[in-house]
């Protein structure tokens, strides 16, 4: 037990003694802040008539305005989730790339303990990224909504439940990143997979899956869909044309956890416990 606590402390020190974490955190804050602020202004403008609906092409115009604040706030995870994944993947692939597995395993020869400690650490720091992203989406997005006279719903427990579930989702995403990093220890390959999958492959799959009832059910189990189900709101669920009811929030959480566990356990077998040469 003491061994595990020490390992977690060492993993925290590893993250906070290099610059990556705050660079990612700043980019995350700015990105989510711009997106949440900008879209809050657009949608609130439309709702309050400040912006004429004719001036923009809203597509289906499917946004029911009562859901506007949670939609804006959920950008923290529905768009920001790639940041904890990247941090997690860089944390585990970095050990291979810089050959720091050698001093790490010399100090803690129990390799499973090290990987478990890394996962726990990244879940906590991922939740920290969740706080940063929420500061942007709720702080800036909510501020803009209020400025347009739309109720930001900050009194409602709904909003605070969304905040809590976002923290959980962001933590789980970081754990998925750690798992991916041990599954694909090559750092460049890992980053390419993260970016290609999150920015391109999965959104397309979710869109394609959403057209049929059957595929929509399967599509609910894609990690991004599971994450949105966990958080409870997302631009993607609003934009999808039809279909199956999304998973319950706890089901979404379990699906995410499942992805993290499967990747980590397989990664442990294929790379983490192998020879360090």
């Amino acid at each position, binding site marked *: 037990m003491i061994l595990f606590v020490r390992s977690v402390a060492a993993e925290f020190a590893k993250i906070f003694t290099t610059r990556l974490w705050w660079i990612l955190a700043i980019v995350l804050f700015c990105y989510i802040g711009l997106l949440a602020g900008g879209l809050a202004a657009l949608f609130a403008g439309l709702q309050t008539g400040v912006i004429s609906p004719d001036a923009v092409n809203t597509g289906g115009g499917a946004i029911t305005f009562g859901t506007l604040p949670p939609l804006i706030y959920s950008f923290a995870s529905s768009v920001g989730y790639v940041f904890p994944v990247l941090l997690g993947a860089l944390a585990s692939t970095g050990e291979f790339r810089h050959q720091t597995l050698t001093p790490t395993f*010399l100090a803690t020869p129990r390799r499973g303990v090290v990987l478990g400690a890394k996962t726990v650490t990244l879940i906590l720091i991922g939740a920290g990224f969740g706080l940063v992203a929420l500061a942007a989406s709720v702080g800036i997005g909510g501020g803009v909504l209020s400025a347009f006279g739309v109720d930001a719903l900050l009194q409602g427990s709904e909003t605070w439940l969304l905040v809590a579930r976002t923290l959980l989702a962001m933590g789980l995403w970081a754990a998925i990143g750690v798992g991916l990093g041990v599954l694909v220890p090559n750092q460049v390959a890992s980053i390419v997979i993260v970016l290609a999958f999150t920015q391109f492959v999965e959104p397309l799959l979710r869109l394609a899956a959403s057209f049929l009832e059957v595929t929509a059910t399967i599509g609910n189990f894609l990690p991004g869909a599971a994450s949105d189900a966990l958080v409870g709101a997302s631009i993607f669920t609003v934009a999808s044309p039809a279909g199956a009811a999304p998973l319950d929030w706890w089901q979404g959480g379990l699906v995410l956890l499942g992805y993290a566990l499967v990747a980590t356990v397989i990664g442990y077998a294929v790379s983490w416990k192998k020879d360090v040469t």
Partner: protein
Amino acid sequence: MPAGAVIEFHNISKRFGGVAAVTDLSFTVEPGRVTGFLGPNGAGKTTSLRILLGLVAASSGTATFGGVRYRDLPHPLATVGAALEAASFHPGRSARDHLAVYTIAAGLSRTRVLEVLTQVGLAAHAAQRVGGYSLGMRQRLGLAYALLGDPGVLVLDEPINGLDPEGIRWIRGFLRDMAAEGRTVLVSSHLLSEVQQSVDDVVIIARGQLVHLGPLSSLDTDAAPQTIVDSPDRDALAAALTAAGITFSIGRTGLLAATPDPGLLGHLAFTAGVELSVLHRQKAGLEDSFLALVGGSQSL
């Protein structure tokens, strides 16, 4: 004062796919002595040390410290200090933070960080990012890591690589001091001359197999000793040697006579009235014995 433990290799073998990197290697390393672990490039030194440290799994055999495998040591860094050849640092982390991470992991006192950096002469660069370090500075940082837990056993892979003359002199003295304090010191090198001033014992491997084991002096075999002798009147000297039945060949600096005894040649020359300009024994050096053992330059 931490006590040194005996290092034991028991029939260690390791194959990487089709390559037999180490084959049936057995030897022990005693505390209180510096043991040189020698062999040419690719002999299997690094592989053997990584197996000893639990970083590489042996195909068969066991390697232990006082009978305990590395992974079963209750306080690994406080028992064994290891510096391996590969530079294992995150370039964006300072030396101080690099060491701090592992003191946390091993539950050591944080004050050790500055102590070991001072010990290896890096205190002035403690806050510098390791990415900007020179090869020699990285080598010293690796050594600082090995010293973190003030261990009774030191396992160092090519620690002299990349050090300047000052650093080399320092580390030689350092290795001697560590052994004098009763610690076990195992140092690898591909050059005997690099470590011969500091080692007591040698373990020599080639192509993954043990070829020689024993005190340094055991390398001083002197199998076919010769004496170099020369004279301003070389023909007269040659005639005197032939008359005495001593075979010789003509070398660059004189005649190479097949006898270990310079006195005999001096006496011969004196009685034959030949003036000598050169007379000394030609010893096969330790390095020559070493090269003969590992199979010279064809060892790869």
